[in-house]
């Protein structure tokens, strides 16, 4: 038995195919194809959740994505726990566990429901008016209480083991919505040969045919026609049909994002499949066929479990074979709800009465009701309901009268009318227009190449919808360049009339400020709350929304927005279009973060860059640090060494014998062409005309505003060829900077730029024995000081491999930088490594590199400078060509504040206690005893223990630093004050003799 409320013979599910699932620990049987909601209703369970604020018992309201109440937790296993799942969308699978939310200790007995009794206190926006005293209490008492009471489901606590996928797709026509309208449009478009994608959020296409079984298309039952048409479409090579796929966002230039639910309905999913898949579709044309959503009636206590949309009751009956009650009432403001009563009556359910607030319903439905023997109370309203955990009765009164009649019911179906789903249209930035005749907002002015058809376009009659859809399909295909060979024609019969109805509060909501007539079920917003907001001066619909939280729940106001607007308009004494809608924003329904991320996680979140020698360094035990996207060897600890010991050893070794260092991450740009030198003259502050081929120069690059942008050594390989190096982090932006100037400011220069960062592996060999180490490996280059002085470059071979060999130093020792094609990097590294070993040297990492260069006062752009340092501030004025007529930054450098005194200048700092190492980033003051806020003179940019100096050394940016040489300043730390002396920046070999070996 799959539930006492399953009607034999009704619905489209197969009775033999069952699935077991639990809800709050209790086991139930469902049919394959059931949603959790339909299965629970089949088993007579209406109470499925508690509301957000008042914790009122709530039941299933809808049969679709607009569901505000039936949000549940779904657990597959410990790691796969999903909060806030709409039971009306989630399909049951065998073995599924579901739980209710926002209740304690249980759904039927929830202590939070005390809020309901206190509700007079909790009026809209009450929290803005209280909880202010004492001041600390908000943080420590009120807010934690409010937070604990709010929220819905419980967040996952384990990492999600599922994976997600992402596809880009291009098509001529994207059709959103697979109802009769969408299918017809897709058919017409597909027949032209255009590439068509059709998506529908439900497991099966058909849209309204799920509940309306009176329709025939081309003589076939509407639902059957829909399935057949979808199957035919899917067989066409130019068509993709996606079910369980929601179009959730409509972005610029017809870029539409879809989410396809792949495995959430499967009992034992193939783990190779993604849980969900995002489709990012670029469509030449979009057809929006998203239908309409039925609004509930707004009246007192309209939120009890068992009160549903009339169309939802039809879906449960006609599609799932479930009667939502045994004795149902209907409360409506339009004709369409009558169909629900008729269907249920014919299925054997007692219809207690149809209460119609209108005096004159349609003749046809009245006649049908009479013939079925259903009592119709026109000009009446339901003014209240009774029942605790499920509706048990309705109080009905003639409009304007207080005399009420109580009618026992176990379900109440309501319909205030239908709201066209203009979400996607509005997201496309089209402007909606209010249609007074139908009381609906419809597509008005289009902003993108799309068309709305069918119910979401306000089209009422089914045949008219089909004709509109076929024309749209053909037209949109044509606009994409596809002609129809033959016309598609379809004949439909017998859909109900769905226009008409009302929005806002019905009679039962009254003027009474204590009545709870719900508009937004999930957020517990009542008609009275809207009126209160207006009384308090909230006259914009956006203010009303934010003050009351109407439409801000997980359903984003799919049921409530129009009601809220109508009530606000009435309270303001203005027309609905004057008040206007709030903005529709993506996503249409909530979308899993994991789906939006898809593959972009872990290593694929952001690529990691490794040098060609990475594996060798790893094998030698290197510890790596992240520098931008690069992994760089930080230090090479040997057995028993900590970082400090390893770095001290590396530092000593380089100065005493030799060290080797992987410098491959430095940016490298090949600048070639007859005007290469002229170009570099403009890009760098230095002059390049005088640099002879075979020589190198340290260059500084500024931004146009005069601040240091990057630096590096540039070697002139030939008259027309330069080998430029940049900082590791600056490589890409320097390349962009150069291209920008070359292409747009200096296009007259005949120069080519090529990024060569990853083409060269670079091994620095530094130390007194550096020449000895490479001498036996290098061919064709005279390595003597005379033939190959400091700051030179030669081309030759190393171990038979072509090399650009630089004689340069970032340590102050005699040094070489061996550039070889990247693929040869590991082999050359190993060859040099062996020689270094013989010479008693070692490999060193970035930490040692930093210390050695600091001992020599060499700066690191980005560490010792930030974006506010000029060449002069960094004592680099010598590198600025004084006679140059132009270079990037020449004018910025001359601005008043860049030339005036009092600028921060880069200097050395020596702690009075040589054992104390300053903290990088520490601030410097003249008077450590001054009150806060202190006048800070600058900060420590680099600071190390220098084993070679036998003391700590530091560099700092200090106001007027160069004039403060020898002065004592202070670095106040939380626990002590450190006295420092301002010094020169060179701590070792001031004369620079070691460069020559």
């Amino acid at each position: 038995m799959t539930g006492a409320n399953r009607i034999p013979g009704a619905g489209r599910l197969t009775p033999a195919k069952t699935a077991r699932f639990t809800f709050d620990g209790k086991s139930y049987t469902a049919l394959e194809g059931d949603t959790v909601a339909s299965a629970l209703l089949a088993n007579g369970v209406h109470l499925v959740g508690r509301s957000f604020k008042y914790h009122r018992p709530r039941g299933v309201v809808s049969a679709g994505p607009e569901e505000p109440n039936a949000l549940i937790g779904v657990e597959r296993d410990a790691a796969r726990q999903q909060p806030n799942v709409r039971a009306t969308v989630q399909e049951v699978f065998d073995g599924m566990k579901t739980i209710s939310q926002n209740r304690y200790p249980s759904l039927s007995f929830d202590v939070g429901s005390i809020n309901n009794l206190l509700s007079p206190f909790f009026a809209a926006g009450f929290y803005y008016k209280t909880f202010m005293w004492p001041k600390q209490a908000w943080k420590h008492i009120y807010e934690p209480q409010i937070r604990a009471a709010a929220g819905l489901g419980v967040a996952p606590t384990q990492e999600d083991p599922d994976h997600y996928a992402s596809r880009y797709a291009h098509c001529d026509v994207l059709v959103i919505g697979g109802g009769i309208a969408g299918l017809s449009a897709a058919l017409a478009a597909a027949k032209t040969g255009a590439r068509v994608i059709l998506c529908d959020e439900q497991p099966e296409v058909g849209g309204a045919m799920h509940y309306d079984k009176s329709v025939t298309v081309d003589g076939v039952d509407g639902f059957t026609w829909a399935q057949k048409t979808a199957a035919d479409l899917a067989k066409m090579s130019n068509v993709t049909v996606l079910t369980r796929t929601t179009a959730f966002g409509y972005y610029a230039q017809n870029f539409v994002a879809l989410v396809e639910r792949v495995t959430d309905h499967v009992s034992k999913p193939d783990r190779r499949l993604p849980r969900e898949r995002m489709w990012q579709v670029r469509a030449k044309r979009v057809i929006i066929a998203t239908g309409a959503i039925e609004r509930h009636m707004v009246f007192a206590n309209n939120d009890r479990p068992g009160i549903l949309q009339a169309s939802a009751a039809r879906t449960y009956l006609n599609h799932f074979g479930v009667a939502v009650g045994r004795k149902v009432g209907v409360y409506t403001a339009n004709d369409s709800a009558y169909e629900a009563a008729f269907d249920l009556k014919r299925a054997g359910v007692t219809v207690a009465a149809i209460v119609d607030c209108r005096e004159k319903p349609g003749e046809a439905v009245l006649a049908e009701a009479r013939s079925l023997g259903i009592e119709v109370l026109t000009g009446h309203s339901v003014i209240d309901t009774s029942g605790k955990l499920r509706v048990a009765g309705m109080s009905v009164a003639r409009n304007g009268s207080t005399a009420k009649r109580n009618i026992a019911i176990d379900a109440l179906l309501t319909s205030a009318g239908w709201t066209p789903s203009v979400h996607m249209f509005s997201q496309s930035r089209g402007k909606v227009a209010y249609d007074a005749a139908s009381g609906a907002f419809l597509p008005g002015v289009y902003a993108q190449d799309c068309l709305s058809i069918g119910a979401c376009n306000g089209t009422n009659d089914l045949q008219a919808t089909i004709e509109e859809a076929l024309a749209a399909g053909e037209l949109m295909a044509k606009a994409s360049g596809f002609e129809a060979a033959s016309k598609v024609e379809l004949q439909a019969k017998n859909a109900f009339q769905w226009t008409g109805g009302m929005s806002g509060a019905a009679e039962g909501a009254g003027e009474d400020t204590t009545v709870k007539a719900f508009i937004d079920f999930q957020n517990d917003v009542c008609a009275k709350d809207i009126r209160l907001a207006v009384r308090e001066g909230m006259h914009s619909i956006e203010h009303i929304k934010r003050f009351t939280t109407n439409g801000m729940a997980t359903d984003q106001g799919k049921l409530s927005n129009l009601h809220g607007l109508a009530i606000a308009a009435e309270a303001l004494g203005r027309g609905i279009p004057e008040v206007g809608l709030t903005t529709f924003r993506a996503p249409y329904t909530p979308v899993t973060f994991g789906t939006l991320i898809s593959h972009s996680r872990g290593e694929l979140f952001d690529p990691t860059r490794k040098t060609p020698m990475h594996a060798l360094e790893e094998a030698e035990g290197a510890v790596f640090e992240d520098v931008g996207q690069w992994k760089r060897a930080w230090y090479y600890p040997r057995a028993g060494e900590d970082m400090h010991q390893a770095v001290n050893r590396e530092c000593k070794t380089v100065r005493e014998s030799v060290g080797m260092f992987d410098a491959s991450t430095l940016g490298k740009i090949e600048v070639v062409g007859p005007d290469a030198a002229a170009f570099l003259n403009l890009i760098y502050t230095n002059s390049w005309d005088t640099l002879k081929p075979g020589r190198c120069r340290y260059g500084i690059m500024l931004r146009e505003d005069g601040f240091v942008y990057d630096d590096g050594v540039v070697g002139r390989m030939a008259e027309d060829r330069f080998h430029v190096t940049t900082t590791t982090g600056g490589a890409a932006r320097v390349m962009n900077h150069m291209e920008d100037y070359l292409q747009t400011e200096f296009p007259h220069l005949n120069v080519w730029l090529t990024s060569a960062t990853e083409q060269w592996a670079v091994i620095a060999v530094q130390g007194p024995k550096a020449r000895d180490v490479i001498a036996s490996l290098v061919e064709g280059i005279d390595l003597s000081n005379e033939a190959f002085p400091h700051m030179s470059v030669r081309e030759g071979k190393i171990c038979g491999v072509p090399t650009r060999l630089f004689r340069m130093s970032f340590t102050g020792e005699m040094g070489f930088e061996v550039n070889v094609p990247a693929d040869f990097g590991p082999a050359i590294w190993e060859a040099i490594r062996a020689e270094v070993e013989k010479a008693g040297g070692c490999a060193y990492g970035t930490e040692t590199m930093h210390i050695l260069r600091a001992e020599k006062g060499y700066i690191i752009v980005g560490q010792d400078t930030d974006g506010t340092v000029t060449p002069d501030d960094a004592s680099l004025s010598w590198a600025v060509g004084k006679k140059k007529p132009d270079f990037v930054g020449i004018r910025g450098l001359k601005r008043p504040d860049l030339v005036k005194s009092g600028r921060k200048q880069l200097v050395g700092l020596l702690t009075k206690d040589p054992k104390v190492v300053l903290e990088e980033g520490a601030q410097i003051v003249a008077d450590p005893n001054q009150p806060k806020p202190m006048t800070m003179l600058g900060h420590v940019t680099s600071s190390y223990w220098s084993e070679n100096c036998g003391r700590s050394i530091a560099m700092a940016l200090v106001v007027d630093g160069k004039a403060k040489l020898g002065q004592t300043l202070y670095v106040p730390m939380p626990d002590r004050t450190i006295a420092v002396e301002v010094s020169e920046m060179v701590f070792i070999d001031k004369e620079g003799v070691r460069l020559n070996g």
Partner: protein
Amino acid sequence: MLLIYCPYCEEERSELEFRGAGDAHIVRPSNIADITDEEFEEFFFLRDNPKGLIFERWRHINGCGRFFNAARDTVSDKFKLTYKAGEPKPDLDAAAPAAALVETYEATESNAK
């Protein structure tokens, strides 16, 4: 995500291939070393930041690598036209609608009705 027509590749490509590069038609003065502080401020910092038509630069950085110019509406984000660097600022009133762009929706809609 915008769809941008690269005038060098002569194709519409996704915004992911491009990088915005600020206002177009701001010429670096040939006598930049000699301009006043005010002129430098004007050249380097002050911008119209128009609500409506903007002339801006893009680089097809993950494509052909070329910088080019675009005329775009900053309210609708629609491109009116893209053109090669160095070409003069187009007179959009005189310019024919961009060949690559689809006809406006309004036209389609009136056909439909």
